[in-house]
């Protein structure tokens, strides 16, 4: 094996403290080194040409460059060598600048260290092997999980670019939380008016396969090549037959037993129902938990009235599988339930606010329904308990947010804005009403946002009180809100008719389950994790899986839409080529020695280790061994270090290479 060593002076950067000529000279006599020289700027064109020329003249098999950090110019030198016929992975960089010349003053010891560093690289490269980049074909179909505004936006963007999309929504209709909202800040335009056309567009788009009342069941494969199984839950209504006439819903005798999810439990709905009038698709679903037929075997009223014979009580969940190239998770958020004992949470909750006990202490989404023209009160502000117009309403911000002791450490970001909106809407509708807002700070950093809050305060006369609420209780038909005005430094008591709590945004409870299905990380709150907070905010550490909307962190509509479009763009970048090229630094299993303990599988963060059966010619099982899915492997090598029999090795950082590096130290 013939190795070429090239030492760069980097102008004076290396040359000032390292005697580069001496390094080259020392290495020229080193076993395996067939050529060694030093040059002013190795990365320059003449420098690269020197390398290329030496490769050709001396018939070199491998190259070591002593230069700056490999993070800087490894690619440059690999490319140069490749063009001269040396496999790019037969190139190693010794970091003589960042790790030597720049951090030392003494020329002899820096030079000695530089020689060591080059020798380490030479010993490693002796065990390098030519590698080829891995090429993976790309399936140009996207899966979007979640049919809220983020999912809708991503699906439409990708579909409009000409690629097929599968949109999966767990509820009977798409639309998400945005469809529940009344008006939106800061423009106060009607949420449904802007959303509904997009929902219909999704429904009608020839590139979109819409699967509502469905959940992702299984995700296999890797970037460009996922295989996704979707569970289509039994609707008990044949969607291909139903015309959405609504007769079944009107005739259902069960009217009061089920609380309307859409109206945030402020109203009830029948056992067979469409979540809301503009639902897409406009196909009802039977809630089997309340339906009489499923309890007693009798009734079947819906079936009797349906002219299309669309009701199918025996319908089963069905499973559909899709080949998918990219996945966008847009699973959204929910509001923190602040009862005394929040279910499944270790958080303490806000029992002292009476939520869940005091009927007119409501959360933000409930207020949206009350304020909505399509809501239970047709947009009139009437309190839930007695349907009277509240004359004094207290809004409390940061309930659960920014409060590590009782809720969450993070800021839910949108509450300042929607509280201002709520107060404003209330004032617009109840002209003689009083609106109070308890806040910690006002965070209104968006286009037109601060002006919006100012308008609420200055034009609509909402009273903002900086301080926290300690307790809410009922007294003489009023809700006593005890708090403190920290600016005035006085304790406050407001006798309110209604209280609206701006509770924290938290991830959907299914978020972590979906993240596990996808094999992507999520933070301690359950929000999905991006791979880099600055430079790759919509990508996940698993290739081909992107994030959109509030599943990542609390965000408002424009941000969700922007993120959704960004995620769509990332997916489309992937779809832009037929073949995907990947670094060949992946793990590989030697099946003959694999003992099948699957510790590698346990430590793999990417689900890249699969099981493979080895059978003899007669079909008898010999053993089950690990197998690395090179498409999923990201090349960390944890499996390699964990494997007890050393049957899995990380190509490019094989044990042999690292041992050679370590043992090269013994010569110093």
């Amino acid at each position, binding site marked *: *094996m*013939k190795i070429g060593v090239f030492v760069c002076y980097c102008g004076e950067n290396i040359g000032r403290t390292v005697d580069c000529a001496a390094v080259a000279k020392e290495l020229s006599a080193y076993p*395996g080194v067939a050529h060694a020289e030093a040059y002013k700027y190795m990365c320059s064109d003449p420098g690269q040409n020197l390398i290329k020329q030496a490769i050709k003249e001396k018939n070199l098999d491998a190259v070591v460059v002593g230069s700056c950090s490999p993070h800087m110019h490894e690619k440059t030198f690999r490319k140069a060598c490749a063009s001269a016929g040396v496999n790019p992975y037969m190139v190693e960089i010794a970091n003589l600048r960042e790790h030597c010349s720049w951090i030392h003053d003494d020329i002899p010891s820096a030079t000695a260290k530089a020689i060591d560093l080059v020798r380490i690289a030479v010993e490693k490269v002796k065990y390098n092997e030519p590698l080829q980049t891995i090429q993976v074909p790309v399936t140009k179909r996207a899966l979007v999980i979640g049919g809220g505004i983020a999912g809708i936006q991503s699906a439409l963007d990708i579909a409009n670019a000409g690629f097929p999309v599968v949109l999966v929504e767990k509820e009977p209709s798409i639309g998400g939380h945005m469809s529940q909202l009344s008006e939106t800040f800061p423009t106060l335009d009607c949420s449904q008016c802007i959303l509904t056309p997009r929902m219909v567009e999704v429904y009608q788009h020839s590139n979109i396969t819409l699967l509502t009342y469905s959940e992702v069941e299984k995700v296999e494969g890797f970037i460009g090549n996922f295989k996704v199984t979707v569970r289509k839950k039994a609707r008990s209504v044949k969607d291909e037959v139903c015309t959405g006439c609504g007769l079944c819903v009107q005739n259902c005798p069960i009217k009061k037993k089920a609380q309307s999810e859409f109206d945030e439990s402020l109203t009830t709905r029948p056992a067979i129902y469409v979540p809301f009038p503009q639902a897409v698709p406009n196909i009802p679903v039977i809630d089997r938990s309340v339906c009489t037929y499923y309890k007693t075997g009798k009734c079947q009223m819906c079936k009797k009235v349906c002219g299309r014979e669309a009701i199918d009580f025996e319908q089963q969940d069905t499973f559909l599988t899709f080949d998918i190239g990219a996945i966008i998770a847009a699973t959204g958020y929910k509001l923190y339930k602040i009862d005394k004992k929040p279910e499944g949470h270790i958080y303490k909750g806000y029992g002292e606010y009476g939520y869940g006990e005091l009927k007119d202490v409501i959360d933000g989404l409930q207020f949206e329904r009350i304020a909505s023209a399509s809501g239970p009160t047709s947009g009139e502000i009437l309190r839930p308990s007695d349907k009277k117009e509240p004359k004094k309403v207290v809004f409390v911000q940061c309930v659960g947010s920014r409060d590590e002791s009782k809720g969450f450490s993070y800021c839910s970001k949108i509450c300042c804005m929607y509280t201002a909106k709520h107060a404003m809407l209330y004032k617009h509708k109840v002209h003689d009403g009083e609106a109070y807002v308890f806040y910690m700070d006002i965070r209104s950093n968006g286009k037109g946002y601060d002006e919006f809050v100012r308008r609420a305060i200055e034009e609509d006369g909402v009273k903002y009180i900086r301080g926290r609420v300690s307790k809410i209780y009922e007294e003489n038909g009023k809700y006593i809100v005890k708090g403190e005005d920290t600016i005035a430094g006085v304790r406050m008591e407001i006798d309110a008719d209604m209280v609206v709590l701006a509770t924290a945004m938290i991830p959907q409870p299914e978020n972590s389950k979906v993240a596990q299905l996808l094999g992507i990380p999520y933070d301690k709150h359950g929000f999905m994790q991006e791979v880099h907070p600055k430079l790759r905010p919509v990508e996940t550490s698993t290739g081909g899986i992107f994030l959109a909307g509030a599943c990542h962190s609390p965000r408002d509509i424009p941000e969700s839409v922007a993120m959704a479009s960004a995620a769509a763009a990332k997916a489309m970048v992937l779809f832009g080529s037929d073949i995907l090229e990947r670094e060949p630094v992946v793990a590989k299993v030697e099946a003959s020695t694999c003992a099948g303990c699957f510790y590698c599988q346990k430590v793999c963060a990417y689900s890249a280790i699969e099981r493979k059966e080895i059978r003899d010619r007669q079909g008898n099982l010999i053993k089950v061994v690990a197998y690395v899915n090179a498409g999923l492997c990201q090349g960390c090598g944890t499996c390699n270090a964990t494997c007890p029999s050393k049957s899995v090795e990380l190509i490019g950082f094989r044990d042999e290479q690292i041992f050679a590096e370590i043992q090269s130290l013994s010569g110093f």
Partner: protein
Amino acid sequence: MNIYKPELVEIKDIIEETPDIRTLRLQFKNPETQKAFAFKAGQFAEYSVFGEGECTFCIASSPTRPEFLECSFKMAGKVTKAMSKLNIGDTMGLRGPYGNHFPIEDMKGKNIVFIAGGIGMAPVRCIIWNVLDLKDQFKDISIIYGARTVADLVYKNELEDWKKMAGVKTVVTVDPGGETPDWNGEVGFVPSIVEKVSPKAENTVAIICGPPIMIKFTMPVLKKLGFKDDDIITTLENRMKCGLGKCGRCNIGSVYVCKDGPVFTYTQMQQLPDEF
């Protein structure tokens, strides 16, 4: 005398026979040793890469050409991989020659059929050149050589030389699917090519060397052609360490392959326990 200490040899040339087979041309560093080194076709040696270990191969060059020693090896284990990384001018170690040899004296005046597969050609090449260099002492020579693919054929130039020689019949074959568009040799497995070439058995010695599976299926063909067990000669390739009849690795029954072999007649082989 330290029987485990090798002599130093220098690599004079490296020939890349196939992607994973190399031939090294070696010369003793000490000219006296080079002069004194005598061996017979079929013997083997222990080759050292210092720091990696030793490795056993038959000597692939002919005793009739004593100025160099050649060995051909396939990169498989630790030492062969290290050997493949050496350059011309590098130093290796060599112990030998060891073991018995082909009965070349007994073969004189007879026809000879050489049958080899893959890297099994290395020991056969040694005796082929030995015989060809003394060609007037032998009768008709046939060489049947097969490899998996055209790329896996070793000694490509010499195969051409042998083809051109008078009185030598050279048939080269590759496994079905291993041929290239310009391949003009045979296509088929060695046993069937032997059957096709059908060398006559009378007054003929067959020397056969190759993978166990090839030997297994060629033997019945040779028997069918009328070869006697005593006239079929092969070399065994058991794992060895010392080469001196001590370390116990190459034993098959009471036989030390390194001492009593590696050359065995088919008759002898049949008497050994089935452990090779």
